[in-house]
């Protein structure tokens, strides 16, 4: 992929008329994917499935002959989600390693902190997990180099709100992490609840580096809500005990989790702590065979969240490079949306690549769903799962809901 000899030719999209152009990266025939996924930080528990998804995809692609005749190589970096100062230097590492695409970050907030850096350098940023609606704003991505396989929280917000109303809760408190993700998901949930006739008792945004959350929890408790939506990452393990000691724990209140904190807590809490908590996260039902393949890549997986999305993001990148006949990000970025929707359906890299080789327009349907990306590079349709925690502090599926954005 690209060396460092950039040229200033404006090869980026129509959107960027007012701002300057992204650098363009020369093609060198080798597609390098850089993964910027959480190894440390508040989302570290979601790192393993994501890494496994990318790795599985890279293996599949290379088994099928690679891209443009060469195997795809992967560079790993830590997005350190929740502590954005890690991601910056890690992106430098990826850029220096000539990564053509940066798969990540997981947290929307972290992605925002590096998006300019990545796309200004003329690379594609492709997140499997960002759900903040902010990325659909053209200002956020002036060079059209940002894509994602996770659906905007417009959808998750609606599903969560509907679930809350379905449970007969009318006056809901929202406790959310202050970042692009928490803020905007909270806003969507609030909107959904108010549209459905309910009221939001209070919406408290907390700063993730707070040492404790007693004041926030007190504030929530003081409004005596019917239910509480907790939009958080790993700090959930601090907030839940604080809620319990304020008398608004899962035993006393219906509590809702979201993608940022839906995880296996059997090691973290005594039995029964989370019993009855409901949760939502994007992603269609995980097919058994794909789950088995992820487990083959990483046998220690416990959660699978965003594993399929990571797989699909990797495959879509590869397909776009094949379609553009170039590994230059500023070339293949225009093909990513094309290969994801409209055309002959195909479901594996090999199948799709063969079709492309025949000059057919394809529509890749992936393991995470149909992955039809819209104009803004985000899925236009997606499935959200609704789950419930049992006494073992682990979650099981209640149902899946599909919706359009």
């Amino acid at each position: 992929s690209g060396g460092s000899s950039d040229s200033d030719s404006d090869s980026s999209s129509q959107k960027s008329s007012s701002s300057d152009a992204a650098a363009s990266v020369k093609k060198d025939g080798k597609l390098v994917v850089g993964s910027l996924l959480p190894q440390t930080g508040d989302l570290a528990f979601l790192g393993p499935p994501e890494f496994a998804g990318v790795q599985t995809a890279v293996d599949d692609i290379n088994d099928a002959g690679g891209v443009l005749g060469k195997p795809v190589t992967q560079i790993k970096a830590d997005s350190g989600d929740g502590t954005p100062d890690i991601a910056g230097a890690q992106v430098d590492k990826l850029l220096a390693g000539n990564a053509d695409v940066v798969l990540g970050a997981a947290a929307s907030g972290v992605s925002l902190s590096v998006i300019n850096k990545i796309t200004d350098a003329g690379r594609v940023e492709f997140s499997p997990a960002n759900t903040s609606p902010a990325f659909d704003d053209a200002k956020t991505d002036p060079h059209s180099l940002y894509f994602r396989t996770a659906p905007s929280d417009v959808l998750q917000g609606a599903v969560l709100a509907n679930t809350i109303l379905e449970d007969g809760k009318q006056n809901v408190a929202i406790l959310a992490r202050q970042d692009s993700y928490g803020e905007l998901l909270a806003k969507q949930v609030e909107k959904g609840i108010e549209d459905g006739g309910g009221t939001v008792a209070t919406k408290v945004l907390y700063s993730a580096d707070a040492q404790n959350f007693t004041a926030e929890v007190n504030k929530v408790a003081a409004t005596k809500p019917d239910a509480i939506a907790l939009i958080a990452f790993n700090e959930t393990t601090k907030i839940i005990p604080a809620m319990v000691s304020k008398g608004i724990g899962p035993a006393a209140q219906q509590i809702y989790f979201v993608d940022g904190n839906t995880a296996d807590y059997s090691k973290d809490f005594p039995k029964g702590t989370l019993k009855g908590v409901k949760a939502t996260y994007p992603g269609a039902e995980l097919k058994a065979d794909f789950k088995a393949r992820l487990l083959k890549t990483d046998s220690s997986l416990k959660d699978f969240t965003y594993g399929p999305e990571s797989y699909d993001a990797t495959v879509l990148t590869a397909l776009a490079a094949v379609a553009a006949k170039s590994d230059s990000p500023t070339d293949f970025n225009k093909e990513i949306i094309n290969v994801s929707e409209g055309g002959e359906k195909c479901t594996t890299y090999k199948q799709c690549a063969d079709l492309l080789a025949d000059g057919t327009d394809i529509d890749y349907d992936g393991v995470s769903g149909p992955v039809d990306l819209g104009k803004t590079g985000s899925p236009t349709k997606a499935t959200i799962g609704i789950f419930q925690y049992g006494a073992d502090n682990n979650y099981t599926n209640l149902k899946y809901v599909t919706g359009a954005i």
Partner: protein
Amino acid sequence: MDWGNIIAGSLQQGLGPTAVIYALAAIGLNVTFGYTGLLNFGQAGFMAIGGYALASFVTTWGLPFWLGIVAGLFFTVVLAFLLGIPTLRLRADYLAIVTIAAAEIIRQTLGSVTLLDYFGGQDGLNNFQTTFRNLNPFPGGLDLGFVSWSRYDFWLLFSGWVLVLLGCLGVFLLMRAPWGRVLKGIREDENAVRSLGKNVYAYKLQSLIIGGLFGAVAGFYIALQHSNMNPSWVATDTTFFAYTVLLLGGAARVLGPVVGSIVFWFLITFLDLIFSALTRGDDPFMPTWLMDGQQASLMRLIFMGLALMLLMIYRPQGIFGDRKELAIDAR
């Protein structure tokens, strides 16, 4: 292990934009701490002011880039006054804590939900770097064969090192002059200096302002380098790193911060690359029960902590310092 890549990668950081940022921040600390003896642990606060002024002027208020720069410098001076007037009469250790506290106040306030609309909360601000990018006079990046920088990074580091050298020249001229002598005198005993008819307070304030201005410029470079300004760039650790850089090079030496920064970032990256190489792959050199990739990423900080300790213990004067000068009992 690919030594070539490891060395190249380390050099790239050691000479790259990050080293520029810390060199600038440390030059500022050198003036306030190294020469004047003020234990200013609030350098990150000045960096925050610089970076955020630039970012918010452009992004939030849609004002010109250069106005953002001017504003950054202006608010830095304002902050130096606000901070200096109450605190410069405090004892050294009190001053340290108060300045840390002030930096945290700034950081947490700028990153707060309350001011979300202006400063972007935890995610910070984006899209303010365009003017700077467009100023880039270089047609391409810099490729030295074994290390290379992209066009933007090259511009950052070129302009940055020019500023660093100008800064050093300024510090050199100032510290050779009687002005610098007064600062050094204040470091030793401010009452003595006062008894000789020098307005100690004014000098301290000047020192704080100058140190802060360097911090603000470092803040600009933080924002520009990351193309983003958010609170985590200016956490307390940032100040600690800047101190490490300064002490590594040698406090109260003109070139101390520059050499310190280059060496620091070279070593940090070097360690990082070594340990990640040791733990990479399916069959890593380092057994996984001992260290996995995630733990490997901590090694550089573990070493940096150790290095800072050992440095202060065995070579407290840094690379350039004078051992004898340090050994003199200040009392």
